[in-house]
């Protein structure tokens, strides 16, 4: 299971993943349509800001914010926890374990390979946002775009690694879907998915700055809409990648402990 083997297998894994994403495009489309939560909240906040702006947010800023949230959610989401739960229960994980490459890389490749298809959804949404809000809906400078890419990658990494860590709990408990639901609720409430986190009271904001959730969605969206100067962004990106490191360690640890307990059924 050397690193070189993994690297050699990557292009093929990505190709397979991409082919799968293309084959199940209709399902993905429905899946995309079903993430309407940012739009639901956008409408609510627009009504709130109709007469006077909320904080620094006018109606248009909310449109920009929530359309960016919609796009970022498409790019940073992961569903590895459900997949792992399913494969552990069905025993099909044994097939993956036989291959000379860690299943974690395979899950990651599958996720990453879906990116191009997801961009097809995310890009038009951002174009729409520019049409509705004007050019301030997207970054004005090249460095902001660069930071945005880093922030999206970091956001995706946190989602994916958290998914693996929670999914691997199914080795111990049989099913960890409820844990994933709890995580999802915290993620919805704390990530800036339903409202910009800066509208929260200061005490809560400090707490949220220390939690991983806002780095999954809030940070990329804020970079996209140009909410911070570069010094601040750099600081936040540091915090984000610190969380990536923590989650990575946790995911690998839980997975390694758990996979020893795995016993496949059937024949």
């Amino acid at each position, binding site marked *: 299971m050397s690193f070189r083997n993994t690297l050699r297998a990557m292009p093929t894994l990505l190709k397979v993943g991409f082919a799968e994403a293309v084959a199940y495009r*209709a*399902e993905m489309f*429905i*899946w995309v*349509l*079903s*993430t*309407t*939560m940012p739009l*639901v*909240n956008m*409408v*609510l*906040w*627009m*009504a*709130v800001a*109709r007469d006077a702006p*909320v*904080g620094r947010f006018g109606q248009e800023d909310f449109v920009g914010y929530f359309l960016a949230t919609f796009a970022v959610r498409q790019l940073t989401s992961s569903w590895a926890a459900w997949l792992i739960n399913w494969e552990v229960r069905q025993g099909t994980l044994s097939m993956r374990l036989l291959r000379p490459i860690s299943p974690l890389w395979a899950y990651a490749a599958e996720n990453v390979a879906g990116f191009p298809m997801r961009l097809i959804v995310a890009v038009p949404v951002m174009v729409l946002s520019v049409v509705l809000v004007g050019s301030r809906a997207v970054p004005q400078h090249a460095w902001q775009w660069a930071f945005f890419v880093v922030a999206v990658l970091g956001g995706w990494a946190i989602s994916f690694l958290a998914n693996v860590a929670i999914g691997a709990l199914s080795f111990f408990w049989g099913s960890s879907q*409820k844990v994933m*639901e*709890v995580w999802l*609720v915290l993620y*919805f*409430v704390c990530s800036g998915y*339903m*409202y910009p986190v800066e*509208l*929260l*009271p200061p005490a809560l904001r400090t707490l949220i700055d220390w939690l991983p959730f806002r780095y999954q969605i809030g940070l990329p969206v804020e970079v996209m809409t140009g909410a911070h100067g570069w010094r601040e962004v750099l600081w936040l990106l540091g915090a984000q990648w610190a969380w990536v490191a923590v989650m990575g360690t946790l995911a690998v640890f839980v997975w390694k402990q758990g996979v020893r307990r795995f016993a496949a059924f059937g024949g």
Partner: protein
Amino acid sequence: MVRRYLRLLGIQLKASGLLAVQYRADFFTEGLTSLFWTFTALAPLFVVYGERPVVEGWSFGEALLVVGWFTLLQGILEGAINPSLTGVVEHIRKGTLDFVLLKPADAQFLVSTQRFLPWRAFNVLTGLGLFVYAFSRLGRWPSVPGLLSSVLLLGTSTLLLYSLWILTVSAAFYVVRVDNLTYLFTSIFDFARWPSSVFKGVAKGALTLVFTYVIPLALMTTFPAEAMLGRLPLHALAGAVVGAVVFAWLARRVWLHSIGHYTSASS
């Protein structure tokens, strides 16, 4: 005729009930997750009403009633409607709907009652709890006629929800791969979280029209909440009842039409 169907319903309920009793612990896990999910509905409300005392003519306590109705209907949806109808999609995909069609009872009745998940209905309790909390915030209690009409509207809301589901499932006869139609449906239902007047400002009120007449979400949560507050005009109440009956009749016609298109999956 009616007695026969009531007896059938009793049998189906008993079967589901027995299954549910086997998984008693689910009562607690479902309850906990239900409370947790309610948090996602409440969090934006707290943030919004932290900024404004009144949004589009709805105070915090009043908007809480709408969330309460949303939660209650979600309980009905997940406990009584979703489980059966996801079963239908499975039947259509595998071609096992044959066995249902062969039975000497109405097919729509049989598929709609095939499975109930009582523990999932925990949301109904959460919704009732929200009502009590909302009215204690408002500092008054609903009038008797208001309460009676809201109970009547509970019936129409359930009927509407069920008819919408039948329409969605009818689509499964034409497009077979619709596993995640459930998610699509619940995410459209998400728009019923807020009082429908919130949508007034979007697209010159077109969205309000859509959610009142095309996808009658406003009828499901906003109307009952207004009835509880005693401010739903009588003609709206009558309109809701007539509308729900017409909608159900329409759904029935569509179901009968699409079942004519069913072709078994086997050779």
